[in-house]
């Protein structure tokens, strides 16, 4: 019962975060479901306590990113397409996004990650470097290029950090 309550709370609290990372990485709703299961199963099985809510959220983000990468690297996935069970939208509005979000999703993967982590989750370049296992300077470079691309695409003004 305690496990169930803990799981329910985590899904409620971090479900949107996992959904956003899946959106950045995946286009298949079925894959999103798989990632949700993987992440929250790992969460339930984790016995070590988190130091803080921020630590817990960072762990969720890290595990979700890793799960997405693993899924994309999957040998099976890279060579096959399921014939049956083609992605069934979890909700009717899925796949219809704002122009800004569409512009982000149109970026190469390496830019999407840093944009999401920096502009939405609020992580600094060094923190993103730790999460993505990249050099801090590389993260700065990726952020700058991603901003340029988005500016070109959206014609907006960069008020980033």
């Amino acid at each position: 019962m305690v496990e169930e309550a803990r799981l329910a709370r985590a899904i409620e609290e971090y479900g949107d975060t996992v959904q956003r990372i899946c959106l950045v990485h995946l286009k298949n709703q079925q894959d999103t479901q798989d990632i949700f299961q993987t992440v929250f199963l790992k969460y339930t099985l984790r016995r070590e306590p988190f130091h803080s809510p921020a630590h817990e959220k960072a762990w969720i983000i890290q595990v979700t990113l890793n799960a997405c990468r693993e899924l994309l690297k999957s040998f099976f996935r890279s060579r096959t397409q399921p014939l049956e069970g083609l992605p069934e939208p979890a909700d009717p509005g899925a796949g219809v996004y704002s122009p800004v979000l569409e512009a982000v999703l149109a970026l190469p993967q390496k830019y999407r990650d840093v944009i999401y982590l920096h502009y939405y989750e609020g992580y600094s370049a060094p923190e993103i470097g730790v999460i993505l296992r990249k050099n801090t300077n590389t993260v700065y470079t990726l952020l700058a290029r991603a901003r340029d691309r988005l500016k070109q695409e959206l014609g907006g003004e960069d008020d980033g950090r």
Partner: protein
Amino acid sequence: MEDKLRRAFDSVHASPRLKAETRRRVLEALEPSRPRLRVFRPALGLAAACLALLAFLGGYRFYIAPTALISVDITPSLELGVNLFDRVVSVTGYNQDGQELAQQLEVEGLPYTQAVDALLASDTVTRCLAQDGYLSLGVAQSDTAQGQRILDYLSRCTVGMANAHCYGMGMDQAQDAHDLGLSCGKYQAWLELIQYDPELTPEEVSSMTMAQIRQLLEEYSGQSLSEGKGYGQGDSHGHHGKHE
């Protein structure tokens, strides 16, 4: 741009259906491991107990399996089963006197040497010998090292004894004897006697004393067995006592 991006990502939510499905799947994935653990531990304990029991039973069966038989025929007829460790694991009487003597003797578990000593020193055997009885001591499975050791010991035991005879035979012959309800010594005697009297039944031989069998053989053969090597088709061996 930061606000635009924030608003854009803010519009993305996990649907209630996705959350509910995730919860269901995770709990389902966890579920099999719980009872499995509960079942596995007792099952493991049970399996270990079964293995221990099998090992014990296997060891016990191995221990109680006779690898050689010592057949004693005088008036009583009985056999001592001897295991691989030279311990007596069974005492079987083949006639009423033999069954009574088997019940009196408490030799199971003893080394066969002590059992044979106790048997030869028993009142029944000494009385029979004193009354002109004839003692036949045999070993089934005499072709093994253990059988030879036992036969040598029996021969040493009967050195100087009047009316004693030692012999060895194979386990298959011992089995034939048992199938006919005879001790090994009387089976050998029966094989010898039917050469002269094919009508003689194992039951008739079973009811005779060894002294009577010996006398009958002397009558049939027309010669005193005290001059010969004794009777029997087994591989007679060792000491033959002072024959009548």
